[in-house]
Structures are given as C-alpha cells and as structure tokens.
C-alpha cells in the first residue's frame, strides 16, 4: 500500500518531468483508439443498415381460393411453431387486388379491365436473420408446399441469396479488418509505450542503484502506462463522439430516408475500448520494465 501511494506520487512527477514523450504517447493512443472506435461506429451502423433491409418479407405463401379455415389454422400453427419466423402478415384476395391496381405499371394497364380478380390471398412471412436463413427458408418452403390449401410459394431466391452473400462477405470483411485493426493498434500502442520507456533506462538503473525494490521501480511505470491508456482512450471517445455528432447533423436527413437512425457505439463497447486501452498500457509497460530489469540483472 505504502509502495502504491508513493508509486502514485512518483508517477505524477515522472509524467511532469517527461511531458513531451508522455504527450506523444497519449496522442498516439488517442489516435489508435479513435480509429478503432470509428471502425466500431461504422460496424454498428452498417449492421443497422443491413438489419433494416432484413425487415422485408422474404417468403409469400399464396393460398387456394377455396382454402378451409382449418387448413388456415394449420398453416398458422406451422408459422407460429417455427422458431425462425419473425412475423406473418395475412393479405386477403381483395387487398391483393387493390394493391395490384394501385401499383400496376402502365404497360399492364390492360389487365385492369379484367372482370375477375386473378389474385390469390397470401401470407407474407418475415424470418429472423441467422447465418443459415436461406437454407432454412428453402426447407420451410418445401414443407409449406405440401400443405393443403397452399397454391404456391414465392420467394426471391436470387435476391435473398445475393443479399445473404453480401452479408457474409461484409461480415468476413468487417471481422477480418476489425480483428487486424485491433491487433495492429494494440501493437502500435505497446510499441509507443515501449519507445517512451526506452528513453528512461538510465532512470530505471539509477532507481535500482539507490536501493529501490524492483516492485517500487515497476509500479510508477505500470501506473504511467495505465494513465496513458486511460487518457488516450477517453480523449478518443470525445473525438469519436464529435465525429458521430458531425456526421449525424450533416447526413441524418439522407439517412432518415433510408428508414434508419445513426447509432452510437453501444455502451459495453465504449467501456470495452477504455478497458482495452488501459490493459494495453499496463501490459506494454509491464513487458518493457520487465525486460529492462532482466537485462540489467544479466549484465
């Protein structure tokens, strides 16, 4: 405890007497964590965008015109028992015809003069997003096709599969880039802290010579590394917040039109960033001081 308190005091005076290298390290950490944070921001918003696209119906089940109500109940049971179905909307023949009439393109106008309603009633089904959604939809469609009262099944296989692939592609890329980015920035932060400790070898040596315990030598450096990590990440959060605010105020309108909101990084990730940064500061200092002490002792 005594060591911690005086270690704390020593840390402060160390920082004050090596202002410039301390500030350079903090600046580097700030930048590195900002980059990570902006990437997270991108990740969250792309994710939001992708999942807003997910809101659309993926399967339409067309019904026989003479479907019985027990057959209908049977179908609805099947829908509600399936874990992956998110929602179903029932569309009656009349609604379908009305919708068709209002949406029909000019060149199909002649159809409007038909005296009968050629359109069937239907269920529009939306599925939860999951990795194997497409194959699940295929299987589920096969089951539905065999049910009585079902005329036909329509699902935009091509569009769904393209979309799913895009999702997979994006996820691979986001995770790969995100992983490499985190790893890279962590390495950068620890390199920076090590460089800043390198310039203090003499100090470490002197402390040991005038009777400091190895722990007393390490603690101020560890604390300093953690303070650098903390300061850097907190500054970074302000920067990320600023960028978010700017983008939001500038582009919210065009984003609105896409039916989504500009999201900020989720709270656990914010604290995760700070924690990560402090941890990296600690580890880098620990490894560097450990290395010095080891080298000094070998000498």
């Amino acid at each position, binding site marked *: 405890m*005594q*060591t911690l308190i*005086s270690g704390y*005091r*020593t840390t402060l*005076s160390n920082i004050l*007497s*090596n202002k410039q290298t301390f500030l350079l390290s903090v600046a580097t950490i700030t930048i590195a964590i900002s980059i990570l944070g902006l990437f997270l921001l991108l990740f969250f918003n792309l994710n939001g965008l992708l999942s807003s696209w997910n809101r659309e119906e993926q399967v339409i089940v067309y019904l026989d015109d003479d479907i019985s109500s027990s057959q209908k109940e049977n179908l609805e049971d099947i829908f509600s028992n399936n874990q992956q179905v998110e929602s179903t909307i029932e569309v009656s023949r009349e609604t379908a015809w009305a919708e068709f009439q209002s949406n029909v393109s000019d060149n199909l106008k002649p159809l409007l003069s038909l005296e009968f309603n050629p359109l069937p009633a239907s269920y529009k089904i939306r599925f939860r997003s999951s990795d194997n959604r497409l194959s699940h939809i295929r299987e589920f469609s096969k089951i539905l096709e065999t049910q009585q009262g079902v005329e036909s099944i329509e699902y935009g296989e091509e569009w769904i599969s393209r979309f799913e692939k895009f999702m997979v592609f994006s996820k691979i890329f986001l995770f790969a880039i995100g992983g490499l980015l985190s790893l890279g920035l962590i390495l950068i932060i620890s390199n920076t802290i090590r460089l800043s400790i390198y310039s203090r070898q*003499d*100090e470490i040596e*002197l*402390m*040991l*010579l*005038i*009777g*400091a*315990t*190895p722990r*007393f030598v390490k603690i101020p450096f560890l604390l300093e590394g953690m303070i650098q990590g903390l300061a850097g990440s907190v500054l970074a959060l302000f920067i990320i917040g600023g960028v978010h605010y700017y983008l939001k105020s500038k582009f919210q309108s065009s984003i609105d039109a896409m039916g989504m909101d500009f999201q900020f990084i989720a709270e656990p990730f914010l604290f995760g960033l700070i924690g990560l940064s402090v941890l990296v500061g600690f580890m880098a200092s620990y490894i560097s001081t450990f290395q010095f*002490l080891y080298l*000094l*002792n070998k000498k």
Partner: protein
Amino acid sequence: MIQVFNVVKMYDGSNPVLDNISLEISKGEFVFLTGPSGAGKTTILKILFGWESFETGQVLVQGINVGKLTHRNVYTLRRSMGFVFQDYKLLPNKTVFENVSFAQEVIGHDQKKIRFKTWEALKNVGLTPKKDAYPAYLSGGEQQRIAIARAMVNSPAIILADEPTGNLDPDIAIEILKLFEELNQKGSTIIFATHSQEIMKAGNHRVINLNRGKVVSS
C-alpha cells in the same frame, strides 16, 4: 564490516581487472582508495555495492554475503550504503532538490522527513541557492556536489565515494572531505577513491593503493 577475500574479476574473460584482491575495512574506518586510471578502483566499489559480479572469492559487507545476493534482495544491501558515482548519475528531468529527495522516496521515507533531510544535505554541500535548478544548468562542480548530497542524505552506514572531488577546487574539496570526516565521526564507514595527493595528505587516513588490479600497499 567489509571483508574481501581473494576476489578475481574479469570483464572479457582474459585480463583480470581485479587480480586476487583481499581487503579488510573495519566499522567506522575512513580509507582512501587510490591508484592510476584503470587500476580497478571503481570496479571494487561496484562489487561492494552488489553492482558487479565477480568470478571467484568472497565478499562480506555488514555480514551480508554479497556474492549470494540476487537482484530481488540486493536493495537491502544498497539501502545501508551511499554511493557517489564517478559520473554523478543525476536525473536530467529532475531539479536539484528532487534529485536528492528522490533517493529517499525510493526507499520509502515519509514526505516531511524527506524535505527536512534534503534541505540539510543541500546546505552541507553549499547548494541551497540552486535547489530548483536542473542539473544541465549547473557547473561541473555543482553537479558533483549534488551527487555527494544524494549519497549522504540517508546517513548510510557505509559511504562509497568514487572520486567525489575530481571537479572541485581545492578549497571546496577540503570542505567536502571534512563533511565526509564528520559523517565518519558519527559512525559511517567511508571508502574514498581519489587521485588527489592533496586530499590524501589533508585527510591523513589509511590509503589503499591499487595498481593493475592488485593491492600495492595498504
């Protein structure tokens, strides 16, 4: 207090820097260590301080077997000693006052005592007016006196002074010598490495004369 038996030290595996040295210095003694450049004076002081290893032999300091100390517990030895480094080893980013008080912080003294003793030590070497200056802004002799103040400030049982008056004019050098003698009177054992005949004459203590790693006279 300090016993050195048949110590051999080689840096590069060929020429021994210390060649089968034996010494005995009793508690409360004041000895001069002298000899030409490269004779091994600094090396022997470093060995007593647990700062250099040695090939063969035994070193006992205050009953501690120095050869057996590891880096984890060598600080126990060093806390009972003050070392005036030949190259001062002042921290350039700390002021004079901080450099001296740092030596006490490191061994965990409390803040009030530190201020008082630092002040005292700076007064002894005549540097109170410079207490807030950084080492780079001091003359060579002033820097040397900070190094002396730092070694004395904890009133250690043993003081190893490596050429502590090399950059001082004769008057101040004699004053510093007197300071060491006062500490010696109060019980500190002192080993004072020096080239200066004048200092050795003024001191009139036992002289250990090294040459090429051997004790020539003692």
